[in-house]
């Protein structure tokens, strides 16, 4: 059901781990549905020098965390802001419909970490909104189910 790219990033996830004294940390997801993603950023001179993640979630959650962190590493904050869940999915050669929300989680974790960085440093990042508090993404079957 997963593409080879997804399986590769699931089996050999890049950037797993934590950063001590990170510039920003974002945790999203909701244990309710079983998925939690935590992203750590090390930012210097507006550039993402390092990024790490920890994920409690399905194969797609792990793979999108891995791919999202790969995509932002070395990028400016402005560039990182452009990494949407769509970009992550495309880089992974797609996800099954029922797994699209996992990539949304990765986008949101990244943005939450950037928000944390912005808050800590009293700066404003264009287009960035505060993370939703009680995020509850539904696990629905996408097809019409009358």
């Amino acid at each position, binding site marked *: 059901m997963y593409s080879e790219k997804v*399986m590769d990033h*699931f*089996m050999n*996830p890049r950037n*797993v781990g934590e950063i001590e004294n990170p510039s920003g940390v974002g*945790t999203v997801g909701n*244990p*309710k*549905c*079983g*998925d*939690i*993603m*935590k992203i750590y950023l090390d930012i210097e001179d507006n550039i993402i020098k390092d990024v790490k993640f*920890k*994920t*409690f*979630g*399905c*194969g797609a*959650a*792990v793979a999108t965390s891995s791919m999202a962190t790969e995509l932002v590493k070395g990028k400016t904050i402005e560039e990182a802001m452009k990494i949407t869940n769509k970009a992550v999915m495309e880089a992974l050669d797609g996800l099954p419909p*029922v797994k699209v929300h996992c990539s949304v989680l990765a986008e949101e974790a990244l943005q939450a970490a950037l928000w944390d960085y912005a808050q800590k440093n009293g700066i404003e990042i264009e287009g960035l909104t505060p993370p939703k508090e009680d995020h509850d993404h539904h*696990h629905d*079957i996408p097809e019409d189910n009358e």
Partner: protein
Amino acid sequence: MQKIYFDHAATTAMNPQVVEAMVPYFTENFGNPSSIYEIARKNKQALDESRDKIAKLLGADPKEIYFTSGGTESDNWAIKGIADAYRNKGNHIITSAIEHHAVLHTCEYLESKGYEVTYLPVNEFGQVDPQDVLKAIKDNTILISIMYANNEIGTIQPIEEIGKIAREKGIVFHTDAVQAVGHIPIDVKKANVDLLSLSGHKFHGPKGVGVLYIRKGIKIKPLLHGGAQERGRRGGTENVPGIVGLAKALELAVENMEENNKKMIELRDYIIKGISSKIDHVKLNGHPTDRLPNNINFTFDFIEGESLLLLLDMKGIYASSGSACTSGSLDPSHVLLAIGLPHERAHGSLRITLGDENTKEEADYLLEVLPPIVQRLRDMSPLYEA
């Protein structure tokens, strides 16, 4: 790489003897059993013999055996058919919180049609208390439906006792025995059941064929209206090869049950002990003793089920997390929630269901590869503090 199938509760491979029994009915004796000419009579005979065989193996009368397309149809038919036939008597149905979706979703549908459904809770081991059944019975109760054994955690219910209560109160009693038939001894009379669902592919029989046992005297409306097959109660040209296969599979399962179960219980307990001693922060789900001989279900704290399955798959081990049928949905298992697990723990379960062909070597291989896999996922988990 070796491949180890540990998901027998999801489905089983057909026994080659079963395939062999079916083959003559594919291209040779193919007639419609409802026809009167010679080649159709051979098919009619195969149908009758299969019905007799199954009846005998369940302690039923052949006239009480109705063929369906599987466990789901049997469950839907039993519940909707009784609800419809006894509507003038009442509209209250009693079931449990841990039924298969074939029962639960049918009950939810009936709720939308004006029926009232009580979903009984279960204890931490997944058992329904017969006293809870008794207390839930009201004047307008027309049906009690409690599964024989659970598909996820393997817990066996006190069916005989519940049946006794239902019989005393004059309420129709259905049991979804899809996971039990062919796996533990079952006699419909002793179990005090009025209706019983079973499905061929759960005991090395064919997919797409099942049975609903309907005790003599029980009124039921058809679910599939049509021709006069199955004594006018279930239309549709009979799936003769499938029926012959189901009968053969059940015969083999019952014949070898004692021997197989002895072996499987040993293997089951060996794996349970192994996992419990080799990995910390684990919990065995289900009942310690009132448990299907082939069922193992563990929760591993801090990790998620699908990831675990994918990594096991890479090692050639095929297992499941909750029921395979629910994997189209991503909600945590309603069964694990019902036995009191919090949501995140309910997401990290592993179900291993054995078949008679599984060996101790396979168990040892599992016990060798599982601990590092669990550790690896825990190391990746934001919930885990080493």
